[in-house]
């Protein structure tokens, strides 16, 4: 089922001018977001996933330079002025932040914080806005919302605060929700509640979600499509099934293998050696080559293009080139491939 494309990011580059030199945080990133889908962006710190989202919100620091296009409803967001951003930010594209303690204002009642974007974007009275805030609090599952609308953030638990943060993001009925590690600060049982809340809301409102996380377990449950980022580039993108059962990039293999599942046997955990590259001077070839046990000579010389695996699945690794030698991926990845093949046969 082909859905309407709502956001189209083309050749996005973001660099930061610093005293040490130019940091190339995002390098030639392309992706699309369709209406009603959840796109997960996975990567480690420094991979550029958070800069991507901040760019989509127009929240980059002053020393950032942007090039490329961000198409949204016929507009190019990369060209907007700050006053034009005000109409988009929070209204059309809203963000759910990671840490509910620091993203809420400790001196303002929670009800008022939820009502604030409504007042700002819809020019309605405070009383009406607070009425809407109450509905939103009920919608995100805050018990006895009437009694708690005047509460302050410190009176609430982490999970409840994160619900408030979600309510704020939902306040102006945004088309796109960007969730930046929304459950990383929460306990697993609370995480499960928040994730199922986000799924319910998406079904009701048909909004699109960009979900930023490093937790592949959360991705497996939430995403329709997955983009894996490394050193400022997308190295693999595909449907959740393609990325988890038919992964092609050695970095994706490494990520999947370095996270134990409850079935991983002792002593069999494989780690990715080394550390991510310095984006002041990104390596010439494939940025992952230095940590890649499957690296070919070409990986150190030339950046691999995006090779097409299927209509929806792309990976930037020279291993997919027809001249590349046959290699055997790690056993745990072969197991995933087997599952993929047996699924294909069933279809």
């Amino acid at each position: 089922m082909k859905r309407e494309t709502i956001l189209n990011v083309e050749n996005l580059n973001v660099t930061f001018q610093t005293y040490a030199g130019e940091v190339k945080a995002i390098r030639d990133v392309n992706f699309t977001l369709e209406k009603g889908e959840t796109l997960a962006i996975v990567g480690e710190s420094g991979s550029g996933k958070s800069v991507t989202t901040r760019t989509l919100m127009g929240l980059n620091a002053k020393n950032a330079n942007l090039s490329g296009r961000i198409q949204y409803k016929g507009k190019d967001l990369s060209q907007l002025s700050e006053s034009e951003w005000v109409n988009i930010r929070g209204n059309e594209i809203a963000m759910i932040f990671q840490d509910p303690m620091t993203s809420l204002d400790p001196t303002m009642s929670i009800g008022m914080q939820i009502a604030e974007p409504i007042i700002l974007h819809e020019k309605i009275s405070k009383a009406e806005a607070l009425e809407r805030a109450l509905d939103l609090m009920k919608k995100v599952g805050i018990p006895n919302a009437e009694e708690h609308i005047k509460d302050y953030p410190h009176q609430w638990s982490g999970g409840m605060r994160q619900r408030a943060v979600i309510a704020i993001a939902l306040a102006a009925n945004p088309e796109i929700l960007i969730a930046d590690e929304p459950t990383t600060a929460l306990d697993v049982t609370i995480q499960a509640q928040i994730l199922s809340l986000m799924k319910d809301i998406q079904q009701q409102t048909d909004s699109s979600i960009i979900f930023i996380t490093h937790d592949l377990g959360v991705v497996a449950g939430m995403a329709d499509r997955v983009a894996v980022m490394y050193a400022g580039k997308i190295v693999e993108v595909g449907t959740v099934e393609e990325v988890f059962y038919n992964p092609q990039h050695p970095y994706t293999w490494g990520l999947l293998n370095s996270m134990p599942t409850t079935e991983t046997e002792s002593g069999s955990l494989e780690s990715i050696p080394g550390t991510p590259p310095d984006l002041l001077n990104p390596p010439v070839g494939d940025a992952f080559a230095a940590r890649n046990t499957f690296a070919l000579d070409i990986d150190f010389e030339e950046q691999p293009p995006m090779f097409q695996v299927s209509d929806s699945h792309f990976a930037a690794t020279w291993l997919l080139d027809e001249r590349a030698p046959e290699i055997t991926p790690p056993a745990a990845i072969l197991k995933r491939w087997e599952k993929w093949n047996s699924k294909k046969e069933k279809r």
Partner: protein
Amino acid sequence: MSEDRKKLVEVKNVSLTFNAGKKNEVKAIDNVSFDIYEGEVFGLVGESGSGKTTVGRTILKLYDFDDGDITFAGQSLSNISGKDLKEFRKSAQMIFQDPQASLNGRMKIRDIVAEGLDIHKLTSSKEERDERVQHLLDLVGLNKDHLTRYPHEFSGGQRQRIGIARALAVKPKFIIADEPISALDVSIQAQVVNLMQKLQHEQGLTYLFIAHDLSMVKYISDRIGVMHWGKMLEIGTSDDVYNDPIHPYTKSLLSAIPEPDPDFEKNRIHVDYDPSMEQDGQERQMREITPGHFVLSTEEEAAIYRSERG
């Protein structure tokens, strides 16, 4: 669990109340008992506020407990002081969660790692000290170029390696690792866990591994204890606890672990937990349901648990 294995740490009916007698009284640890055998990894899991970190700190005598007793290698810790306490601090070390906050930013790596050596006067000359520090850095996969650098020059994973080297400096028998990997990136987490496992085998260490990342705890631990609201609810081998969880809370906790497998996630059934069963006023104690697998329960509940398992 063979009975002939030596117990290194015995925690017996320990309770600890913060702000006792005041309005904001908190029962952080409530009658908790468990043993850690020599050479094993004991995993302690629970959510924030469950008391797992407090238990770790209490074992290290960073807090004084109110009731019960803790023994380390047969010696009671309740009245330990002076020379004995210093000796104990040498055998039991800690690896902290945040390697950024737990390393002194104004000290060089050489001095951070050697601090324990200096305090316990374990080396007699500067050469010996340097040699020992270098050996420790080797062990954790850092090299001697790093000796004269400061903590801010390192990545998170490297800093955690420095924290591990510092803990190993005094040749401890027992290490408490409190969320040692939760501040690290996924690809680095596996490196640190593998390093900890390697060191455990090489040096015959015993670990208390405290974490909320249940799959990692399952991976590294021989036995696991599950805590909630200051109480220990279930103890067993990691296979028993994961494959056959008995306490409703453990079941709920396990059902919430995200797995990197989309099919599994689609079919996930999340089990809710009703904590009111812990507050019904009934007297509960740890009872053995299957060999080596203990659950906090009443006599009747234990009978039901046992009958469910044949």
